[in-house]
Structures are given as structure tokens and as C-alpha cells.
């Protein structure tokens, strides 16, 4: 029952998202292609965080760091005239993964609130580093002269082509993520989360698995950063600000952590609410704030729990 309902919801979501460009074209409202593309980019970032947060129990309060590194990788290469998207995006993923390796290797030694704060500390350092990079605009950031070039395969200047590329990547990450968490790797991560000593006792080294998950998540978020730089055609250290890490985290919790699809929903709802409410009133935050509190208090498994219906949480 529950599984079929989940499958229906997932399929319906994918179809709805795929329909956005033609419907927007029909209504002569191309803006919605941009808005939903932005939502999906943040959905990829939230999804990558869910891997370590929802499944691994690692509450990283510094996930925006990889968003920033990915964006800066694209921006800096473009600054020196390298427009090749394959190269730019590979560098974005690799650089984020390396940063995640360093940050993770130090942070995973700690746990609980200490983990939250040490990941925050690293991101703050990167943020201040970004501000002091005068060549690349300091805190003003810099424009991305041209979107990444893919040798004529995909033209990112075409809004719909870019949209479907992001959608394809999102679906790919959802599928890969699902396979990963169902595989042995995912089971170890979850075991380490619920009972680390036991996982160690039955012969796993949770540290290495956790670190691997941390690096994977960092790399995936780096790709989201590369996408965001292309979406905005502008990049700033603001991508790494701690409030941005918070926003990504809220997308995960709001949507429902440990569900992979939940964070996607969370990203769509949070950014959608921002867009709608800020058009209604400049005091939109007084509505958004209590909404977040109410969701936490009453929808314990996030919004996805509401959509999916009542199922006991799997251990």
C-alpha cells in the first residue's frame, strides 16, 4: 500500500515537473521555467544533504560550502576563458569532494552539536576566504560571462534545454540515491547512525563509510553549485553564507529527512512560499516563521509524510 502510494506520488511529481516548460510556454509565462529550475537546483543540494543528514545522522550546518565551491570552480575557470562545461563541472565536483574530504576527516571525529558547529566553522572560514578574493570580486562576486558550453550537445542558453538537463540530473540523483541507500553502503551508514558501537562490533569501520558518504554528498552539492552559477549567471560568497546552509537544511527537514524525495518537496515548497508570500506582503517572514514551527510540531516526518500518508518509519 504505502509503497504504491509513494511510487504514484513520485511518478506524478516527475511528470508535473516535466510538464512545466510546455505549460509555461502555452501560458506565455516563461518565468516559471526559471523558478522551477532554481527550485530543482536547490533540490539537488538538499538531496545531497539528506544523504548524510537523513540517513547518516550527520547534521552538517555547512553544506552551502560546496554550493559555493562548485559555483566558484565554474566562475574562476570561466574568468580565465575556459568555457567547456565538461571540464568546469568535473572540476566543480572534484574540488567540492576534496574540500568535503578534508572537512569530513576532521569533523566526523566529533558528534552531535559539536559536529554541527565544526562544519559551520569551516564554512565560515570559506565564506571569509571568498570575501577576501579580490581578483574574483571579493564580496561583490563576479558575473559569469557565458553559461557552460557543452560542445553543441546541450545549449544552456535555451531555458527549456537547461531545465530538462537539471530535471534529468535530479532524477538521476534520486535513482542513484535510492540505490545507494538500499545497498550495503546505505545499510552501514544507517546502522552507524542508530548504533555506532554495534556497527563497529560487527566488523564495520563506520568512520570510513561516513566519510565516504560525506564526500559523495559534497561532490553532488558541488554540481548543484555549478548549476546555480549557470542559473544565476553570477556568483558571490553569499552562496556560502551560513544562512544559506540553514536554508538547505530546512528544505530537508521541511520535506522530510531520510526520504530522498522529501528534500525535493521541501525545496519546492520553501522557495515557492518565499516567492508567493514576498509578493503579498513585505512582512512575509512573520507568516513563514510560524509555518516552519507548525510543520515541525505537527508533521513529524515532514511534508512528504503528509503526502505519503501514515506509514510507520522504517528503522
Amino acid at each position, binding site marked *: 500500500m504505502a509503497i504504491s502510494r509513494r511510487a504514484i506520488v513520485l511518478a506524478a511529481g516527475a511528470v508535473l515537473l516535466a510538464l512545466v516548460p510546455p*505549460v509555461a510556454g502555452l*501560458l506565455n*509565462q*516563461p*518565468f*516559471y521555467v*526559471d*523558478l522551477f529550475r*532554481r527550485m530543482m537546483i536547490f533540490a539537488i543540494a538538499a538531496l545531497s544533504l539528506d544523504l548524510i543528514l537523513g540517513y547518516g545522522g550527520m547534521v552538517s550546518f555547512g553544506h552551502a560550502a560546496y554550493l559555493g565551491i562548485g559555483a566558484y570552480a565554474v566562475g574562476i575557470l570561466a574568468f580565465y576563458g575556459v568555457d567547456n562545461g565538461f571540464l568546469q563541472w568535473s572540476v566543480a565536483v572534484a574540488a567540492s569532494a576534496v574540500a568535503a574530504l578534508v572537512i569530513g576527516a576532521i569533523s566526523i571525529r566529533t558528534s552531535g552539536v559539536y559536529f554541527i558547529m565544526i562544519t559551520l566553522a569551516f564554512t565560515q572560514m570559506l565564506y571569509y576566504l571568498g*570575501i*577576501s578574493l*579580490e581578483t574574483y*570580486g*571579493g*564580496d*561583490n*562576486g*563576479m*558575473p559569469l560571462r557565458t553559461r557552460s558550453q557543452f560542445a553543441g550537445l546541450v545549449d544552456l542558453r535555451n531555458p527549456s534545454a537547461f531545465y530538462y538537463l537539471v530535471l534529468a540530473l535530479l532524477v538521476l540523483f534520486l535513482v542513484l540515491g535510492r540505490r545507494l541507500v538500499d545497498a550495503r553502503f546505505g545499510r552501514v551508514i544507517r546502522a552507524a547512525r542508530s548504533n555506532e558501537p554495534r556497527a563497529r562490533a560487527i566488523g564495520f569501520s563506520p568512520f570510513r563509510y561516513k566519510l565516504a558518504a560525506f564526500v559523495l554528498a559534497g561532490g553532488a552539492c558541488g554540481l548543484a553549485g555549478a548549476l*546555480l552559477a549557470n*542559473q*544565476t*549567471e*553570477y556568483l*558571490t560568497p*553569499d*552562496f556560502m553564507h551560513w544562512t544559506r546552509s540553514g536554508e538547505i537544511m530546512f528544505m530537508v527537514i521541511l520535506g522530510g529527512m531520510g526520504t530522498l524525495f522529501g528534500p525535493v518537496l521541501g525545496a519546492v*515548497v520553501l522557495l*515557492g*512560499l518565499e*516567492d*508567493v508570500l*514576498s509578493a503579498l506582503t*513585505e*512582512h*512575509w*517572514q512573520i507568516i513563514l516563521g510560524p*509555518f516552519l514551527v*507548525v*510543520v515541525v*510540531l*505537527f*508533521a513529524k516526518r515532514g*511534508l512528504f509524510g*503528509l503526502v505519503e500518508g501514515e506509514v510507520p518509519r522504517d528503522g
Partner: protein
Amino acid sequence: MLARRDGERDLEDTVRTIIRAVLVGLLTSLVAVGPASAEAVKIGFITSLSGPAGIIGKHMKDSVELALDHLGRKVGGLDVELIYGDDQQKPDVGKQVADEMLKKHKVHFVSGIIWSNVMLAVAPVVTREKVFMIGTNAGPHQLAGKDCSEYFFTTSWQNDQTPEAMGKYMADQGLTDVYIMAPNYAAGKDMLSGFKRYFKGRIVAEVYTQVNQPDYQAEISQIRAANPKAVFVFYPGAMGIQFVKQYAQAGLREQIPVYSVYTIDEVTLPALKEAALGNWETRYWSPDLNNEANTKYVSDFRKKYGYAPSFYGAQSYDGIMLIDSAVRAVRGDLANKAGMITAMRKADYKSTRGPYKYNVNHFPIENFYLLRTVRTPDGEFAMQIQKTVFESHKDAYAKECGMKW
């Protein structure tokens, strides 16, 4: 844990239903399309309305509304539709809001924008679509120089001009041994380099502090130890309030005078009051600037909103007036963009700063004044013009702009 009571369970169900309803409502309102109105001028005004900078956004929005009142709710004789957007002080949000205005509302003009980084992200997107970008605050040097555009106009200034005026004034006074400070970000560096372009005396130290730093006592102690003849700072917004208050409390104000730009203005003065008394600023506009348009703007603003207007507001008021002059010149033919460019280049409207001309890069050539915080006869605090530092001052980047007209 206590067993959950049935009442709580009911409440949870109710709230769940409400959340579901909110979600559905959200989806519908996202795709709702407003009715398209025939021939109206559509202006998208982007500023920071929420968060700490929301107060500047309020000054700007109130002034836009006042301008529309003065124009009888018409722009260039046509009906007007104004769409306000909140950039949350973030470049990527600003860009998204601009996209929404261009593609959803199909505006003819985008206006506003407080921050240089938001402007740098938004202006190219707007001008690329051959839509007018009428800046009413940020004046980053890129847009004045190599990235200038036919479709970009500003009613404010180029960032460097104001500190240049202060540098000139302090150089003219023969001041030397000056201690200069700014936050460690791009605008801070621009301000100090603009200052140094005209100030030729000795600089004791050039100090950059952390962005949004609340406490300056450590830096103030360093100033006391260095014992300069004067201090020049750039601390906008809350940073300025904190620096100026703390400087006064340290008892240094009587010994070492403070000269500043964008630090003390009508937005921060109500929070500062006597702490800012006697401090110097340079600026292109002041509420006591004596011309017909300004007198009307200042007195009607006070009457309508009950507080003192600021330069942020005056620029935004001017922005709407500039748009009005352009639409009027082409007799409401919004497709005649070349005609509107020609019209705006004349700056043919009653500006709150008095008459001015546009430079080749569409930045104003305007006067800059020396201002001082004084106590008015009714016990209030205000900025008053002391003298003119620059007459018809041009910015330093216009020669890098390739436009010819």
C-alpha cells in the same frame, strides 16, 4: 513520555489538514496569472524590503509612491502598474526577482536596487532584454566603465564620487595624518581608493574591519594610540551607528574629528542623535537643498509619512520622474526605445538635486556638498549643507565606457 491524549491527536489531524490546504493553495497561486492590462507602463521596483536593510527599502518605496501621487498616479500620461520585488539583499534572489518581472510581468522598466552586488547581477539580465534599468542607488564602477549600456541609467552617483569629494575637501583644508577605515569588502575598498584619488596628504593607517562587525572598541584604541589629525570612515547602516556611538563614548570625538561618507544619513540619524553631532559628510543631496522640486518632495514626504526623507528616497523619487519624462517624450509609445533613450539623456525633469546633465555612461554629472550634523532650533538633529565641494563632478570611469552620443 506521557501517553498522548486524544485531544492532541485531533488537533494534529486538524493542523495536518491545514498544512495540506496551504500546500494546495501555494501551488495554485504559483501558477495563477494576473489579467493583462492594456497599455499601461509597467515598472518593476527591486529593493530590500525584509531583513535589516528593509528600512532603506521603505524609504525608497515610500518615495516612489509619493512620486506617483505627484504625477496623479499616471506615468507619462499612461496608467501605471508598479510591482515591488524584495531582493533580500542577495544577488541571486535579486536576479530571480528581475527574471520574474521581465518574463512574468513583462515590465518596461526595472528600477531601484540598493546594493552594488545585486546591481551587478541584475543589470546585465535586464539590459540584455533591451528593457530599461533605472538604478536609484548602487553605482558600481563596472557599469560606469566597460560594462556601460544604452539601457542603463542611474539617478544616483558612481560609488567613488562621494569619497572623492571628501578627499578633495580634506586636501583643500590642508589636513594631513589621516586614519582611514572601511569594512573589508569591495565597496569599502572602492570608497578608500576614491578618497585617495583626491586626498594627497599623509595617511597614518588604512584599516579594513570585518563586515557587519558590531564592536569597534579595539580599532578605536588603535586610533587613540596612533593619534592622527583626523579620521575618515565609510560605515554604512548599522556599522555606522555602532562606530559613531562607540567613538563618541570613547571621548575621542572632541580630540580627533570624524569625516565620513554614507555613514551618517537621515536613516541612521534618528538612532544616533547627539552622538553624530559635529561630524562631517559629503553628499550630492541634502533635505535643505534649496530648489522647487526638493522643497516639494521634502515637505510632502514629511506630511504623508511623518518622518524625514533620505537621499535613498530622493533618488528613487527622481527615478520615477526620469521614467515619466521618457514616456512623455515619446507620447506613450513604449515601443520607441531609441526615443526614450534620447529623452532620458537630456535629464529633462525637475530633479530633487536641481538640474543636472548625463555623462556618456548615463551617470549624472552633479554637484557634491559638504554636510555637517547640527542641532536644529526645534531640538532635532539634521544634516545641513556647509559648502559646495565639487561643481558638476564627473566620475572617473566614464572614459572606459564605449558609448558615443
